[in-house]
């Protein structure tokens, strides 16, 4: 009697077994990446009401981050500047620019600009900018090289695991106070030693308990 199934079907269970494993692995990998903030949040680049370029201001013109975000060292929030700050310069520079129309309107009509939040933490996480800057964590560690961004986008996942990575191993992210806003600073060769010293001096023990950030 002729065989009902052709010979190649003999290998079917093997293929199937391999296939299931591969598929399962793919599914895990898919969820692992595509469901994580690395995919869902990183790269978020909303349009802002004013086409403000950090590259132009922070890189080409060399403004310090803290000219506008001036509360970053004294407050949990790094403030988005009031319209007044823009107008400090733009009453003289490009006073007629069409792209700056929303800024001038905001200023004259006393209506605040509504910027779109890029870096967003959940409401139950209380991040404190001033504490991190005091410890010596530079802007670039969390925000990426903002000085190269024409439109700001999110570079890091800002997930709890990502926070904890740094809280457990903060050494490579600590830098001297004067380098905080330098986007191109590289840790020197003796970074480990520097970190050890500065952690002693400044009593830096990043919390890894719930109460460090949640309240």
């Amino acid at each position, binding site marked *: 009697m002729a065989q009902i199934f052709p010979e190649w079907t003999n290998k079917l269970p093997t293929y199937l077994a391999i296939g299931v494993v591969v598929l399962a692995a793919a599914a895990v990998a898919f969820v692992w990446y595509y469901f994580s903030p690395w995919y869902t949040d990183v790269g978020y680049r909303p349009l802002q009401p004013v086409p403000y370029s950090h590259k132009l201001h922070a890189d080409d013109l060399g403004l310090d981050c803290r000219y506008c975000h001036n509360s970053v060292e004294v407050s949990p929030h790094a403030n988005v500047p*009031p*319209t007044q700050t823009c107008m400090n310069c733009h009453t003289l520079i490009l006073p007629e620019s069409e792209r700056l129309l929303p800024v001038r309107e905001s200023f004259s009509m006393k209506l605040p600009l509504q910027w779109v939040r890029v870096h967003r933490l959940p409401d139950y996480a*209380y991040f404190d900018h001033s504490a991190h800057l005091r410890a010596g964590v530079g802007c670039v560690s969390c925000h990426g090289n903002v000085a190269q961004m024409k439109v700001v986008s999110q570079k890091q996942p800002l997930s709890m695991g990502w926070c904890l990575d740094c809280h457990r191993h903060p050494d490579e992210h600590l830098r001297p106070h004067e380098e905080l806003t330098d986007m191109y600073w590289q840790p020197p060769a003796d970074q480990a030693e520097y970190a050890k010293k500065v952690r002693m001096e400044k009593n830096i023990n990043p919390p890894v308990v719930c109460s460090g950030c949640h309240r």
Partner: protein
Amino acid sequence: MSRSELDDRGGYWRSLEHLAEMTAGSQDSSGKAERAREIPSNPWTRRNFLTLMGASMALAGLAGCRRPVDKIVPYVSQLEEVIPGVPRYYATTMPLGNSAYGLIVESHEGRPTKIEGNPEHPASLGSADCLTLASILGLYDPDRSKSVRHKNIEKSYADFVSFWRERHSSFTAGEGSGLAVLSEAFSSPTLARLKRDFAKSFPAARWVAYEPISDENIYRAVQNLTGKTSRPIYDYDRADVILSLDCDFLQTESENVAAARRFADGRRIIGADHVMNRLYVAECAFSVTGGMADHRLRLRSGEIGRLLLALAGKLSQMGVDTGNVPPSGETYFDERWLTALAEDLVRTKGKSLIVAGRRQPVWVHEVTLALNAALGNIDETVSFHGMPDALSTDRDEFAGLVNQMSAGAIDTLVILGGNPVYDAPADVNFSAALGRVEHTVHLSAYYDETSRQAEWHVPRAHFLESWGDARSADGTVSVIQPMIEPLYGGHADTEIFALMAGGRELRGYDIVRETWQSLLKGGDFEKQWRSVLHDGRLADSATPPDKYRAMKSWSKLWSEVPSRPAAASANSLEIGFYPSHLYDGRYANNGWLQELPDAVTKLAWDNAALISPKTAEELAVANNDMVRLEFDGRSLEMPVWVTPGQADYAVALALGYGREGLGQIADGVGFNTYLLRTTGADSFGRGAVLAGTGQTYALANTQDHSRMAGRPIIREATVAEYRDNPEFAREMVEHPALKSIYPDHDYSRGYQWGMVIDLNVCIGCNACTIACQSENNIPVVGKAQVARGREMHWIRNDRYFVGDLDDPRMVHQPVACQQCENAPCEQVCPVAATSHDREGLNTMNYNRCIGTRYCSNNCPYKVRRFNFFNYVSEMAEVVKMAQNPDVTVRSRGVMEKCTFCLQRINRAKQQAKKENRLVRDGEIMTACQQACPTSAIQFGNINDPDSQVAKLKQADRKYDLLAEFNVRPRNSYLAKLTNPNPKLSGGSETG
């Protein structure tokens, strides 16, 4: 039965049901029976909830994948001092009647969120009471009036101003005849100046003050006795023996916050040889002050005066000059009690103090003051301070005004604050008299009972929105400065007063500064003004004490004593009216205060007719029975609550409830007891009749919630027992060595947070509960939820009775999360949502919690609270502005509990790190600690041996609640002490 015998039997009980269980030996300790009572249920049944949730889930899929767009809205021009994310603190003042309480208000980007006492102000000393703390919620109340109204039609403020200008000029011609102003009492340089201006413009006009609750009787007595307008200030801390006559000076009397601190300072014991004051209380309804008494005599308010007579007689026998005391004619005062009290007062001459409550008639106050003088207490424990810039209430003037109104002699009546249609005595019939007045103006925060009958209604600004000033009891003057622009277009008292007086629209700021030009004499005005605004008071502005010289002889005093009242019986009860958590009703729309369980009855969201167990038995009524109360030809139906410790044949009624058309919170809650209150019986009266109607009513009562029965929860001893055995508290529980099956954490390094609550000075006033609610965004859940035991308070105040059902003592114990080192809740959480941090805090992760409630089940203290609903979703948007941005707002299905004010700990730690130092002792104050009027709560780092809390943890009276479970709580208690007179030891101390 001696106290220790009672304690051995677990003699502490919370309710009548609890006591019955104890005597019957039943083990049901959860109060389930109580909770199962039929309560108004929510229309949201489980079934229709699931139906709707199914539908929303289906729809949610459509929109759930997109990241929500979040906006950042910066200032246009930022204020120089404002740093987004960093709260600012401003000093201001809360006026209440003739009192003023100095405050520090926390403000986030111009949004006030939290009220604290101002440590530099003599009337608050850094603390605050429930009313003050809760008034921040009143600021945002969406039910406040939002517009000027003319005959119930919305008008603009300009319309009102032009109306008034027209009246103003026509009255100027007639010198103000036919014009009258009815205001609240005040002590304010600016308001007094404007009132003088008004009198100058309109010499024929009448200005009367009325408030249902006032110190009028006290002021009158001082006036009659000394011929001066001044008020007594009591230095409780300097008194060794205090007799309180119907005077709840720790809670409901004026100047209660400073009184509580001073009283506690005289009672605080550190070490066995410390001296502690002794408090005798004679009162009708159980009060917070009565709970602190070493000897309490339950006595109907109308018989307090007879006690005073009997006491004066006794004192006279002991050589104190009290003139020729008429016989009191009473035989029912315990001779032994009276003798012991009199001996105590004589023994501590010059360091004793007799105080009478504002409910008592003028003659009682006169005799009290004269007795204080005879005992040499004047200028020692009592001093008199003049009342400049004050207008106090006057019931004769008020009655005269109402008569004039009824006679049609008043053409225009301006009511500045207050709500007389609701709270004037029932026999006065203010409402009808108001109808006879042609033009009426009512300045009021709510469109209330009076506003609806007035021609014009003008919205009144909250004190946090107003410029003004006020004098505290000792005359210290301070500024009321606004924290925010009026949210609903309200107008400050100062602005309206100025408009009334001068017909001109002025800014409150200018009006107040004009007054202060004369107050701040010499030197740079601007500099001094700024320092007053910063400090919250003008330093050294207290008025010097008046010299006391009695103008009345003893014989004159005694000749005015009224004759003895007829005996009370079950058919002729004494009726008494008391201020509630809602004060006189002005806080009725405040959810925090409505939901706050009463300190004594533990009733929330209602008032009831309180009667003693014996009276209830004779009248055959029980808890929750509806009764019909008849008094002086008027009647009211309301439920009954049986209150141990109350005088027999007396019914106590809380004021301020039973509102209609005031707001979403107040409407329909409780019963309007003003309907029974008459001029002759504005505090108490005789001849009320109470009869059951056969109906019942469901009251929400928390007294049986969260019981920890049968264990030595409260530990107390007399001072003598304590001296014999200072370690008594620790020895009350014997247990084997405590070993844990879990590995121990190392808590020997770093900050280790701990708390100590001194039960000896805790008065049970509930300020901690409200402070916590304000600081930690705790929602209001409503009566139906409270009745189910779902109140959310992180710190509750357990009230226990001990001893005899008719005449027990009362003990309070605040219980928050005990922050166990070996926490039972953590061990049962399936998702590790509650876990420990390295500083010994038992932390709670809302985002991780899945709501199994295992933790709450396993908590021996029953301090965990579960969000059965998304309570915030029902909150008006504007009320969300009162929320603390530093604390997570919890959602449905999440467990929560006390965090030791983690946000304050973290802020202080980060500040200390920025300044390269350690957190200083006292730098972190939890909200409850900060509010506590008696400083009963201490918090700090127990690893620092010099910290206040570490020292208290070493105190001999220290004990840990349920330590025998090896949960190792971080919160400890100091055992309560009582200081009974050795001559009265034994059970017959009560009369």
